[in-house]
């Protein structure tokens, strides 16, 4: 009986917060669509989120490109078709790994920062101060962050993709000596432009997901120092989980 009650409570409170989250999403989306638009804030966040996450996206993409190259090479070696490695790496990077990697890195770098910033604004009553000054926090705090992340993610994903392709090329062709011409031919053959577009769509969706989750965690945090910590942790956990879960769904839909 006690157990039943517990279970009931958990699902009820989960439904409650799910409802709260969708209300938050609705408010945020309407703030993105409707004026007042805030181009300055938007550009500012493009800068901090985009350039801020660039380095780690580049580094991790280079590393992933490298290991994908190695593993691909080792498997394909058995069949004597190592020149396909490039095509294989390109396809899996474009369709799956580049968007996911960018999503996880932006979560770590910028999502956590969003949650921390917004929740510490709550500690200092700055969110209430905005409301008191007749400015919607959705329009001022949330919308520019979500929009900037959504726009910047496909760009970061593209940069990561290029870097990973270069690093696997460097390893497989330059170092391991696979035929350059054949390698490129198979990248061309296997990778289509529509793959790239779908990868970018994924990246944009991940950007929207991670930024709205992170902003939500900050916006509904408890207004104290512990609350800031909890919000940041939850933002990273939930964003990462939802990126990976939604990736499966997107893969089923898109491919």
């Amino acid at each position, binding site marked *: 009986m006690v157990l039943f009650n517990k279970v009931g409570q958990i699902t009820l409170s989960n439904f409650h917060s799910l409802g709260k989250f969708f209300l938050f999403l609705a408010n945020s989306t309407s703030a993105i669509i409707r004026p007042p638009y805030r181009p300055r804030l938007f550009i500012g966040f493009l800068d901090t989120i985009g350039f801020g996450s660039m380095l780690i996206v580049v580094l991790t993409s280079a590393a992933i490109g490298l290991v994908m190259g190695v593993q691909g090479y080792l498997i394909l070696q058995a069949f004597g078709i190592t020149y396909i490695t490039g095509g294989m790496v390109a396809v899996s990077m474009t369709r799956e790994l580049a968007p996911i990697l960018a999503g996880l890195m932006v979560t770590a770098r910028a999502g956590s920062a969003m949650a921390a910033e917004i929740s510490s604004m709550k500690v200092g009553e700055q969110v209430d101060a905005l*409301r*008191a000054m007749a400015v919607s926090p959705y329009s001022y705090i949330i919308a520019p962050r979500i929009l900037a992340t959504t726009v910047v993610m496909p760009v970061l994903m593209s940069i990561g993709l290029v870097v990973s392709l270069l690093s696997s090329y460097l390893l497989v062709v330059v170092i391991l000596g696979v035929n350059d011409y054949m390698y490129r031919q198979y990248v061309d053959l296997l990778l289509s432009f529509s793959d790239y577009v779908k990868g970018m769509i994924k990246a944009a969706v991940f950007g929207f997901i991670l930024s709205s989750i992170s902003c939500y965690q900050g916006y509904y945090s408890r207004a104290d120092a512990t609350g800031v910590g909890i919000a940041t942790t939850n933002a990273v956990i939930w964003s990462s989980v939802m990126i990976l879960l939604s990736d499966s769904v997107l893969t089923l839909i898109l491919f």
Partner: protein
Amino acid sequence: MKSNTPDMRDVIVEFQGVAKRFGTQEVHKDITLKIPRGKITYIVGPSGTGKSVLLKEMIGLIRPDKGAILLDGEDITKMSEKELLLLRRRFSLLFQQGALFDFMSVFDNVAFPLREHTKTPPAEIKSKVVNLLTKVGLKHAIYKMPGELSGGMKKRVALARAVILHPEILMYDEPVAGLDPIMSSVIDNLIYTTQQQFNITTVVVSHDIQSILTIPDYIYMLYKGYIVYQGTKEDIKTSDNPYIVQFINAKKDGPIEVA
């Protein structure tokens, strides 16, 4: 009725039986009061009696559980956040802790309401902001960030931000708490002259006895969820209401318990 009693028929904001609880704590049990238009009203009372909550209720930042809050006769407790957002343009609130945006300079904080709600050209914004910051003794701190200011300095920046638009209703939550006596009188003077100059309805939460005895047109005292005293500053001096007598004379014995 004495001649200097404000006209309580010309009311801008009215609380009718307002109750508010946080968890099990009943902050407001039954608050009924009227804020006279174009006058200075002080809200006093011991720490933790819900004075800040009362100001926030007045602009819909906190919703009461019961009762009505009328602004020009219209109940704001029934309004959506969207409607409230529009209505708040008529108000300005100095938060007790300042609530400055810590990601903007002092200048940008004070300029914020002008930039958000007016089309004032940059040169004019600059002269207004500098002028106001000079008045509160912070000309030297214009380009500092809030994190680099002392508590009293933050308070004065927040005050400048609150008064820059000359709204219809200005609310100050303990504007002089934590300031030295000289700066206190400078700020009191600024509050008074701003009110006089633009005929702004002013609501001040304060513990400062000196200010309470000199500035307000009308005073309410809050204690344990009720209004326990109301009157003009002249009434106070002759009152035998045990709450206000104890408060004004800073006595530890009386109906107000310290525990």
